């Protein structure tokens, strides 16, 4: 899982940084590398939430740890908080590493303190949405490999179709619509918009309606995941 969460995004930062910049000016090359680094950081966060988390839940179920914990006088919230905090720490580490490699490869960003703070909020939304999807997968896919592969598959496919891995401007209109309603993709565009500019985001993801939609859908995914996890993972048979 370390490969998919940290290794794979870093490989794409390296490939992207040196392959897709052509004869563009140094400034454009630097910002393109910045946009690629952001996309790959988002991909890492997606993998952590959508594949690592369900993998861990399924593993704990398979080896009896969930049964053991359920037999103890523990509030399910405690188990849930532990999982989310561990995932958060792992996601932060992954994000810092991917951006650091991008920076070392020449990625540059242009932002104010407010832009940076707002970006952190969108990163948090990506984390929250990915964790929600991860909890849904972990609750319903019982086996470890099935849970991990479902998570990785969903991450790769949704990232490719929603413009996380491909520029928004080159997507067909139907996928551009999907990119706007898929909160991970719209949050990715918002971060790109804030840190490298609208040219690299493809549209204005910070309009009020788009921001509200992103916020609402990200939180909804998290709440759905949380309900599924607490109802079905902790439910007595």
């Amino acid at each position, binding site marked *: 899982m370390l490969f998919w969460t940290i290794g794979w995004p870093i490989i794409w930062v390296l490939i992207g940084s040196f392959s897709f910049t052509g004869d563009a000016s140094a400034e454009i090359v630097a910002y393109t590398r910045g946009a690629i680094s952001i996309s790959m950081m988002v991909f890492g966060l997606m993998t952590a939430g959508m594949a690592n988390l369900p993998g861990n839940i399924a593993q704990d179920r398979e*080896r*009896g*740890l969930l*049964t053991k914990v359920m037999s*103890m*006088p523990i509030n399910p919230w405690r188990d849930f908080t532990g999982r989310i905090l561990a995932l958060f720490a792992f996601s932060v580490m992954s994000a810092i590493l991917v951006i650091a490699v991008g920076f070392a490869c020449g990625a540059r960003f242009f932002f104010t303190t407010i832009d940076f703070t707002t970006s952190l909020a969108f990163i948090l939304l990506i984390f929250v949405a990915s964790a929600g999807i991860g909890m849904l997968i972990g609750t319903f896919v019982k086996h470890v490999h099935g849970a991990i592969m479902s998570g990785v598959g969903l991450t790769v496919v949704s990232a490719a179709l929603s413009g996380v891995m491909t520029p928004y401007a080159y997507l067909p209109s139907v996928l551009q619509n999907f990119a706007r309603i898929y909160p991970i993709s719209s949050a990715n565009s918002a971060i790109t918009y804030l840190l490298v500019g609208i040219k690299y985001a493809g549209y204005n993801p910070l309009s009020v309606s788009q921001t509200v939609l992103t916020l609402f859908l990200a939180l909804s995914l998290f709440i759905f995941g949380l309900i599924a996890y607490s109802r079905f993972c902790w439910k007595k*048979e």
Partner: protein
Amino acid sequence: MGPNGSGKTTLASILASVKSPTSGKIEIFGKKPEAAKKITGYVPQENFSSPLLTGRENLMYFAGLLGYSKNEAFDIVDELLKKVGLREDANKRVSQYSGGMRKRLEVATILFPGLKLLILDEPTTGLDPSARRKFLGLVQELRNEETTILLITHIGADADLASRVGLIDRGVIIAEDPPEKLKRNSGLENVVNIETSIKSDKVASLLTNFSEKMKIMETETGYRVFTENVEKATPNIVRSLDEIGCKATRIETTKPSLEDVFFKLTERKVSEVD
């Protein structure tokens, strides 16, 4: 004690509040299982300890879940590791532990202070004979403390350790008494245990003739014949087997085991998978 599929694990899961009963009522020291979680410790069949952590780290994790502070936990965990004989290996990763060591570590998770009912679900399954003996020694030591141990097993020799044994079949407790009383009340006097070169319907049918109540039980290596008159039956069994070309490679007379009692009561073998 009961065969696979008889409902042992289901019963343990309900007692541990992991499953809900479809009907009936359970009380543990006067409380419902959910409310008795604070005094009930459960070791499921699966190896739930993390192989990536050390033995000490695993126990510290469970101490944390139970709300102990780090300082409190350290001393208690040290004591628990000593109790289960793992103090020397406390800082080794669990992946380096043998099956028996891992099971003992998992038993340590239910030895935190305050627990009154300890449920061990088939803890000796998969252990080699030496690890099994060592593990049962630990259970014997725990017996002397002020706790009730519910040991779930399909192995008669494990059940022999208990002060009371409940025999379960198809979800129903069919008998419950101290092991010696169960054996005495079974009416089984003696058993001729025979290891044979051949196992077939013909051999089984022949051996049935030597049991007054036509009772024999197939084992992995041969048969057990329940008979009242061992002295008379044994030479005749050997002779008759010879006549049909089947060699008795080992023959001994024993007292009935709990498996025999189960067989007597249900006409089924304990090792039989439903």
